[in-house]
């Protein structure tokens, strides 16, 4: 159950990656940053007393903003899209620390009675008192960070209500995106991804489309970050690390399982891929130790998996299979002599 819940949220993030990498054909590395931004913004909003729905909407909105910045510096400043993504992702690390007011921000579930005290205040003695005299510490600046228990939309009871909520959100996203992509402007976005230079012949601005594509993709990613933070109960500076690779692996896994495109412009496959990825990860953690497989190996496996799949695709598309067969035949006949 939990695998499904978390897998779907990761799948939503993979959907964002799918939009940029597959639909608009721009490899966007902003993901790690915009996911964390969504998480930070959502928790900060909830801590400030805003209802959870608004928190999630803000998460999506700020994700979109991040994507638009990447798109703008890529097109207007003519910076390579990979570099643009990395730059924005790096900027967001600092931004997120500011949003959270620190490296970690929990969704408050307990109300602290007072600010934390220092070691000496709590334990009274360190054994070294004989060395020093008394000094006066000004404790006025210590603030309690939370004053109210925030209302979360997830209750983490594994009773299905969280799952329903997640499915609801994802369904809404898919419906909205499908309608948008079917429309004329959405069609031009898909056209841009298919043949970026071709759109110019029909009077369509490449800048507008590239920026729009990255904005939409990161909006979805920010939304998934917000959902993830509320689901996990906290946001952390490192929450986005490795997300773009996970997203790519999910997209590829989804494509392998569901084939390329078809229903809803292929928007379902990264979500399915995300769930499968999460399930495999859980399996690896549970039983992997029996074959000496550590959870840490998962990263290596993911990368190897991506390389293999992409490599196989390259081979088959450029007639590589034929070349391979010829090569094998040649080697075989040579060895007979």
């Amino acid at each position: 159950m939990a695998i499904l819940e978390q897998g779907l949220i990761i799948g939503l993030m993979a959907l964002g990656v799918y939009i940029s990498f597959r639909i608009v054909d721009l490899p966007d590395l902003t993901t790690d940053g915009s996911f964390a931004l969504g998480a930070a913004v959502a928790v900060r909003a909830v801590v400030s007393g805003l209802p959870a729905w608004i928190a999630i909407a803000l998460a999506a909105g700020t994700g979109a903003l991040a994507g638009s910045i990447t798109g703008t510096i890529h097109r207007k400043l003519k910076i390579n899209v990979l570099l643009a993504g990395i730059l924005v992702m790096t900027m967001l690390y600092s931004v997120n620390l500011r949003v959270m007011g620190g490296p970690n921000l929990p969704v408050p579930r307990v109300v602290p009675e007072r600010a934390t005290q220092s070691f000496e205040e709590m334990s009274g003695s360190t054994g070294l008192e004989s060395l020093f005299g008394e000094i006066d510490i000004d404790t006025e600046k210590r603030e309690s960070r939370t004053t109210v228990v925030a209302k979360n939309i997830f209750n983490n009871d594994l009773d299905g209500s969280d799952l329903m909520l997640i499915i609801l959100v994802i369904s809404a996203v898919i419906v909205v995106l499908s309608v948008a992509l079917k429309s004329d402007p959405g069609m031009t976005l898909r056209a841009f991804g298919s043949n970026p230079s071709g759109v110019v012949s029909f009077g369509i601005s490449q800048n507008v489309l590239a920026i729009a594509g990255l904005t939409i993709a990161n909006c979805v990613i920010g939304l998934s970050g917000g959902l993830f933070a509320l689901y996990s109960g906290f946001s952390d500076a490192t929450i986005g690390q490795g997300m773009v690779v996970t997203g790519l692996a999910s997209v590829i896994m989804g494509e392998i399982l569901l084939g390329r495109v078809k229903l809803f412009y292929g928007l379902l496959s990264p979500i399915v891929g995300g769930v499968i990825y999460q399930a495999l990860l859980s399996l690896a953690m549970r039983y992997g130790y029996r074959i000496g497989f550590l959870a840490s190996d998962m990263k290596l496996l993911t990368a190897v998996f991506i390389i293999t799949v992409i490599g196989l695709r390259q081979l088959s598309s450029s007639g590589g299979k034929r070349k391979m067969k010829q090569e094998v035949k040649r080697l075989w006949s040579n060895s007979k002599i």
Partner: protein
Amino acid sequence: MVEFKDLTVVYNQGMENERVALKNVSLTIPEGQFVTIVGPNGAGKSTLLKVILGEVQPTSGLYIIDDKTMNCMKPHRLAEFIGRVYQDPNTGIFPALTIAENLIIASKKGNRPFRFSSVKEEAISLLRDLGLGLEDRMKTKAGELSGGQKQSLAMVMAILSKPRLLLLDEHTAALDPDSASRVMELTARINREYDITIIMITHNMEIANSYGERLMRLIEGEVANDGIREILSRATSVMC
């Protein structure tokens, strides 16, 4: 309607790799004319097309369309009334989109309002006239078509929004002979029936000799030969 007055294009001016692509080219192409441009590599043919499309700015001289100077126009503005088809069949269409969607995009120029258009009747009849049966495969992805079919579709898309000018850069060079002649017939028909001005670049002398009403030869950035077909065909040693 297209005029060049003393057009000069110099790449990397003032630097070590300075290169003069076009040198004082002056010519006028009246509306509806079918011009074929030939010449060795580096003669400036592609540069001429780029100037027309607004992708390259002239270093000096004027680029005029219908008595209006076009020197500083942006490419996507010029694209509003210029159609183009290039050598690679995948650049004239959108492979990931269906034939229907390709036609919808091609049916207008500029940004689209939020709406759900369907294919215009006109587009379907144009497609039908190709005789390739594409009108029955509207939901097929354009990328799945053969090279010749792609180029035919690209041609239809290029003229769908009624451009004033159609630029063709070796558009049959990558096709097999049958498809190539089919596309050339289509090209000639487009010029005849829709009165669209056509500027075609080719390396294929057979095509150059069989199609078009005016043949222009560029060498090293200058117009070496330029003549209306009837006159030229009577000359003896004009063509390469």
